[in-house]
């Protein structure tokens, strides 16, 4: 438990309290930039684990989730990691924050030999096969895989030669992905005609969209934080562009589709939408309602999945838990996601991302006044 600053000096000499629970620590961007997509994940994760505890816990023991806010600042993430590892003695470290916080947390995890799980934050390439021994990831985004899935969809849907434009925010991860997508599109027989990178605090996206529109693409693919994706799209539409726009489905995709109501605005993602009304969706509603979360329930799938993963990993860890045992469990994990994704989440020693990534594509249908699924689960094998 945290102590006051004065108390720390005194308590440092005292022995740590005996652990009677699985102790797991999270460093998350609960506030600061990007909090809108990370905070709901952590809250949903916590709500699910509280629910698990209420049902008796894992292997008869409670799960204690300690959340530290790092505000997307790398220094704070490092301090949080140190605190969680040294003081709280967590057996599993979780990162739900911006990519700038990865390096310090990886370093700390390595030093303490504790597995680091990226639950909700963009998966680093180190979780792809051959995977770094300590890094695991369950987040929906998949670098390079998302572009593959998206361009495969475009190719399948296009009835005429594809002139494709690309749009991204000027953050290194998005730029790298769009560059990859541009190269990939050429090998698939499409013609990349424009690539626009827009800096984050742009007061008006119209100048960037103007350049895109002038190149006259019939498809545009965007992979970035939601704000950049949607504002580029809106600017393009206002300029009179009538092509098709494909973009990544972030947490708020379901709500945004209903707000934008454009029939040619497609989102591609790996998590099932709430409109499918699966039994697990009712479960999510119940759990998060009990926890009194203030986010729209459609934002909570990713966090729920993370909770499921943590529960499975800890269940496979015999008592008393040590980081090594948790690592062994995670190296051979198969989590039933109850339909929230196209298949179960499977980790092996080589592959800490998942064996298969499944994609669906949706759009808003103005005729039916509802979201319709345009493509059902398409699997892409995750290989070296």
């Amino acid at each position, binding site marked *: 438990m*945290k*102590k*006051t*600053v004065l108390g*720390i*000096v005194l*308590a*440092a*000499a005292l022995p740590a309290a005996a652990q009677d629970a699985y102790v797991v620590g999270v460093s998350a961007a*609960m*506030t*600061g930039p990007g*909090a809108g997509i990370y*905070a709901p994940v*952590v*809250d949903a994760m916590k709500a699910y684990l509280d629910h698990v505890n209420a049902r008796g816990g894992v292997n008869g023991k409670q799960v204690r989730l300690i*959340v530290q*806010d790092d*505000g*997307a*600042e*790398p*220094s704070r993430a*490092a*301090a949080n990691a*140190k*605190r969680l590892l*040294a*003081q709280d003695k967590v057996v599993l470290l979780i990162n739900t924050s*911006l*990519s*700038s916080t*990865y*390096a*310090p947390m990886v*370093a700390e995890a390595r*030093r303490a030999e504790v597995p680091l799980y990226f639950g909700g934050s963009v998966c*680093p390439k180190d979780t792809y096969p051959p995977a770094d021994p300590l890094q695991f990831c369950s987040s929906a985004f998949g670098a390079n895989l998302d572009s593959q899935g998206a361009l495969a969809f475009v190719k399948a849907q296009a009835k005429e030669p594809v002139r494709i434009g690309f749009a991204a925010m*000027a*953050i*290194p*991860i998005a*730029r*790298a992905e769009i560059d990859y997508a541009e190269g990939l599109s050429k090998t698939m027989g499409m013609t990349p005609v424009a690539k626009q990178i827009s800096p984050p605090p742009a007061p008006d996206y119209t100048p960037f969209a103007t350049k895109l529109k002038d190149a006259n693409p019939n498809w545009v693919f965007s992979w970035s934080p939601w704000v950049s994706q949607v504002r580029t799209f809106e600017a393009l539409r206002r300029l009179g562009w009538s092509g098709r726009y494909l973009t990544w489905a972030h947490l708020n995709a379901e709500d945004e589709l209903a707000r934008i109501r454009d029939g040619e605005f497609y989102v591609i993602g790996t998590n099932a939408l709430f409109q499918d009304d699966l039994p697990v969706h009712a479960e999510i509603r119940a759990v998060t309602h009990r926890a009194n979360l203030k986010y729209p329930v459609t934002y909570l799938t990713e966090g729920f999945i993370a909770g499921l993963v943590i529960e499975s990993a800890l269940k496979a860890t015999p008592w008393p838990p040590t980081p090594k045992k948790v690592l062994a469990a995670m190296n051979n994990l198969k989590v039933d996601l109850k339909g929230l994704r196209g298949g179960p989440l499977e980790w092996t020693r080589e592959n800490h991302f998942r064996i298969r990534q499944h994609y669906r594509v949706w759009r808003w249908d103005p005729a039916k006044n509802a979201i319709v699924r345009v493509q059902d689960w398409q699997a892409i094998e995750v290989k070296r």
Partner: protein
Amino acid sequence: MSEPRASGYFRTTYGRDLALLDTRAQKAWLALLCASLLALPFLAGAFVLDLANQVLLTSIGAVALMLLTGYAGQISLGHAGLLAAGAFTTGILFKEFGAPFWVTLPASAAVGAAIGFLFGLPSLRLRGLYLAVSTLALHFLVLHAGQEYETRRGFSTGVVIDSPIQDPRAWYFTLLAAAVATILFSLNLLRSKTGRSWRAIHAREAVAEALGIDVRRAKLSAFVVSCTLTSIAGCLFAYYRGFVSAEAFSLFVTIQYVATVIVGGIGSILGAVLGTLFVVLFPYGIEALMRALGLAERLASVVFAVNYAAFGLAMILFLVFEPQGLVGIWRRVQAWFLLWPFKQRPVGR
């Protein structure tokens, strides 16, 4: 040069006059402080040790800024840019050439001096607000350059650096040595001709010029020295964290450093140290306070926003009610003890 503290201590040589410490009591207190600082890593837990390391690292930058803003009176809002310059120099040299730290440290210092010269050029024509704005603009340019490097070279999540020192205790002693060196260097510099010329241009620039002080040289030297120190701090920061990324050097970092100067008290090295303690420990203090008040659970997800708001509020309170900063409070407390049972200093002192 420092004010005599008690009666009975006569300064009979210039050496005694220039000495930093006069009385036996001062020396005793200093010895106690040194002993406790040296003993800290062996008594404190990992968390406190990390906090101490952070304080020491930040204090180097804070002292540098105090030299520039507190003594020479040149407002600079580009501090984070300087830290970034030192850190990125270290990162680039390490990643591209595998340079060891005895190459990167002087290189960072050199880069800092060069950029300091650049930052200082506007100060020859501008003052006050305009100077602050030009340093702000330069800050954004440095950060932009750093981000471009990160992207073009493919280090999208930052540049990882192997540090020669890994153990927190070793870091503590390294940073302690660096901080002490910086403070001694600054104290010495302030007593020299350069330091006196800084104080002069801060007080009344026209008069300083009339007295024959080369104002341009003084301003530029202030910038160069301060930026070199800051750049070295940036290099140490890069090694301490083990990586470099542009997001770590936002405008808020600059504001935090300026807060150390203001909250600490302008025109005092002790103020820089006290200000650093305040700024680094403040978020943890707020968290402790929230927990003590039982609000921790309810506000768990917005604790950062509370920190932010509380930091702004604390700065405002200091600016409005305690313009002399923590040093002012320290001096008042000291005066109370020194003068007891009297209250006021005698007239003329």
